[in-house]
């Protein structure tokens, strides 16, 4: 699949190195944070696609991960906790020629912003959502998140957790995402490959990147993630939704994490359907307003 992800993106292709996509804003992440891997993977993917930074909009919510756009040379919005998805929907529908990337954390996306996730997927908004999933609230210094395992003690669960975590990948498959992939953030090669594919995918792409938090999550370490990841075999049928869900469920039961491209399908994107709708009603910018006003004549 080498088709350009966005209708006009080929017009804006440039030849830049990964470092050219990096701003000189200093990062505020802790040493050893998995988010560095996500950033590296993203920069590499941008360079490989050749995205024009002027036509890239990077949108985030609130959290450690949501600071990522500051480090990327692009148009960007640092919005409110949980709201990156609908803001990105507005950008994408308003300007389908732009390349839209959301980056954010597990709490941002699946706790406070959880109500938006189904709609990004079912609407098939043409964008990529990169979840930087570290199973913990880091910016507020260590509270349990919707992906925390109960074995972990946090400041709000000092005696251990009392809830089961959710699996973002299973949810996004169910919600109707048309591209779902997962990788360990430290596996920059796979992460950047999935980001690149996801950006080039025509539709809503969800990439879950497991990212260790060395400061507040002492069980899901880089080693633990790395050891638990199994790349899906080449024989995995990425066009089969049931196969994708079965692969995830089987791995979970075995205490493993399936990585790689899990599912991919094609259906019309939201902006495409909007454009078709406008065409159907013969809409255009110069449509005479008087024709509309005349309808209200008695």
């Amino acid at each position, binding site marked *: 699949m080498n088709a350009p992800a966005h209708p006009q993106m080929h017009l804006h292709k440039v030849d830049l190195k990964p470092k050219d996509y990096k701003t000189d804003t200093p990062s505020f992440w802790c040493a050893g944070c998995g988010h560095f891997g996500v950033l590296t993977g993203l920069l590499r993917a941008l360079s490989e696609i050749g995205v024009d930074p002027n036509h890239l909009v990077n949108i985030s919510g609130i959290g450690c991960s949501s600071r990522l756009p*500051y480090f990327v040379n692009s148009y960007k919005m640092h919005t409110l906790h949980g709201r990156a998805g*609908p803001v990105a929907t507005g950008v994408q529908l308003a300007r389908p020629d732009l390349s839209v990337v959301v980056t954010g954390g597990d709490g941002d996306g699946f706790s406070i912003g959880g109500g938006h996730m189904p709609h990004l997927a079912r609407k098939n908004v043409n964008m990529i959502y990169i979840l930087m999933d570290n199973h913990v609230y880091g910016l507020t210094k260590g509270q349990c998140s919707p992906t925390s395992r109960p074995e972990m003690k946090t400041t709000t669960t000092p005696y251990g957790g009392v809830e089961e975590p959710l699996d973002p990948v299973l949810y996004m498959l169910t919600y109707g995402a048309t591209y779902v992939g997962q990788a360990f953030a430290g596996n920059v090669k796979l992460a950047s490959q999935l980001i690149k594919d996801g950006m080039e995918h025509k539709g809503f792409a969800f990439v879950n990147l497991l990212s260790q938090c060395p400061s507040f999550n002492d069980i899901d370490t880089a080693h633990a993630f790395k050891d638990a990841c199994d790349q899906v075999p080449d024989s995995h049928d990425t066009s089969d939704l049931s196969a994708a869900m079965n692969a995830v469920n089987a791995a979970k039961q075995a205490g493993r994490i399936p990585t790689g491209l899990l599912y991919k399908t094609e259906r019309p994107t939201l902006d495409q359907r909007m454009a078709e709708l406008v065409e159907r009603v013969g809409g255009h910018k110069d449509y005479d307003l008087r024709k509309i006003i005349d309808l209200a004549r008695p």
Partner: protein
Amino acid sequence: MQGIPKNDLIIRIGGEGGEGVISVGDFITQACAHAGLDVYTFKTFPAEIKGGYAMYQVRVCTERLYNQGDTFDVLCAFNGEAYNMNLASLRPGTAIVYDSPGDFTPDIPPGVFAYPIPMTQTAKDMHNLRAKNMVALGAMSVLFNIPVESLREVITAKFSRKGDEVVQGNLAALERGRELAMALKKNDPWTIGTAKAKQDVIVMSGNNAIGLGALIAGLDFFAAYPITPATEVAIYVAKHLPKRGGTLIQAEDEIASISQVLGASYAGKKAMTSTSGPGLSLMSEMLGMAFMSELPCVVVDVQRGGPSTGLPTKHEQSDLFLAIHGGHGDAGRIVLSVESIHDCIDLTVVAFNLAEKYQCPVLLLSDGSLAFSTQNVPYPNPDDYHVVERTRWNGEGEYRRYTLTEDGISPMVDPGTPGGVHIATGLEHNEAGLPSYTSANHEAMQAKRFRKLKNVVNDVAPTEVDGEGTADLGVIAWGSTIGVVREALQRLRAEGYKVKGFYPKLLNPLPVQQFEDFGASCKRLLLPEVNFQGQLAHFVRAETSLRPESYTICGGMPFTPEMIVNKVREVLA
């Protein structure tokens, strides 16, 4: 048919939802507006989707109308429930047209003029049960001089899509109703006066008019979420915006709708949403971000009865506190309020102009009464409107999104523009948009953002003064209450009272000087508003030296002119 022409007549039609009550009201409204008369309608819907009591009131006048009036002169009761619901309002002189034989036998109160019309029976005899309302309409057209040629025209236009048979069936029922009425002896004095001249008008509800105003302003993007009584704004826009190449998307909730609006605005488009109180509550946080990141947006709040779920279908003016100060931190916004259907068009254009110029959220307050009321307004020529576009970067030098300027306005740039990459952020930021939490920067940036709002008062007609010279009493009103006060003051002046009116349309920033000037010309001030706490009075006391006397009601209905007249008489007694 004899009768004394009455310049101002109010007809109320009541019946079971689905019996054609709304159609009859619409036909009278359309026909009268078509004939050049002024119309102002008021409706109530049953809370249930099907059935229940439906009411439609049409006020028709040869002069300019500002509100739905005090009470009705003519009642048309399709059934016993409609009769009983309105029995208490029947007074000597009221005329009632009712279905007879029907499901009730009214005990007509003394002095009330009664006209029994076999509506159901006639429709049955014509094998056209659905035309019951047309029989009633025909009878009323004779009894009260509703312009019948215009009626035939609007009925024909309405049903022409359904074929000639349907048109003829309805016209026949109308004629049968006319014959029935002609056989009766008219005793009451009510007939509609004749229009002076035909006018080029449109007839719209407040909600539709807001949608039209947005189209005139150059709306590109609308994010919708259904909520009573604001949904019709979105419905109108959904129908017509695609014709102009624009996008309406329904969001999963109001937080998402305002988020989508800000995304579209950042992308360079004119964007809006409409909601009611509960939705506006949910949007508060994002409106703070719009102020902080200086993104233009228009949010319409069609107010309803609150608090909480409150009285969703009822009228109230109780979101002013929320509109002006809702949200955390020290955030500003522009708040406009509409008086009339005409305002719904014009001030929506103004709202967009202000949003684009000052790069901030603009809230437009309408209310449950205006939402469904229809009124004739002069045909709006789109070319007559001044439409403002945001100031965009000229591409020279290094681009800094939040450059500190004298008037606080920093040029914007659309994504895709080389050299213009920047961030829109809710974090406090420096001129380049990067996070900065220093005292000096936060103070400078807050001052910049609020500096912009200082000039707003010079950009709009912020207030209107009704009357001249000095007055014994000045009445301050906002929203649809203004139209009620206008008429009340006309009546009071006719009685010899020295009264003036003051009608602010810009409520934040408050046009303090205009308030002071008005206050100085009045011995006393009265501020009627439809909320419990006296919300505008609160702001007036806080920001000006004026001490208006609050007159508040919150029964789910608007004021009537009579209520204001009585209150003024009482205050000045």
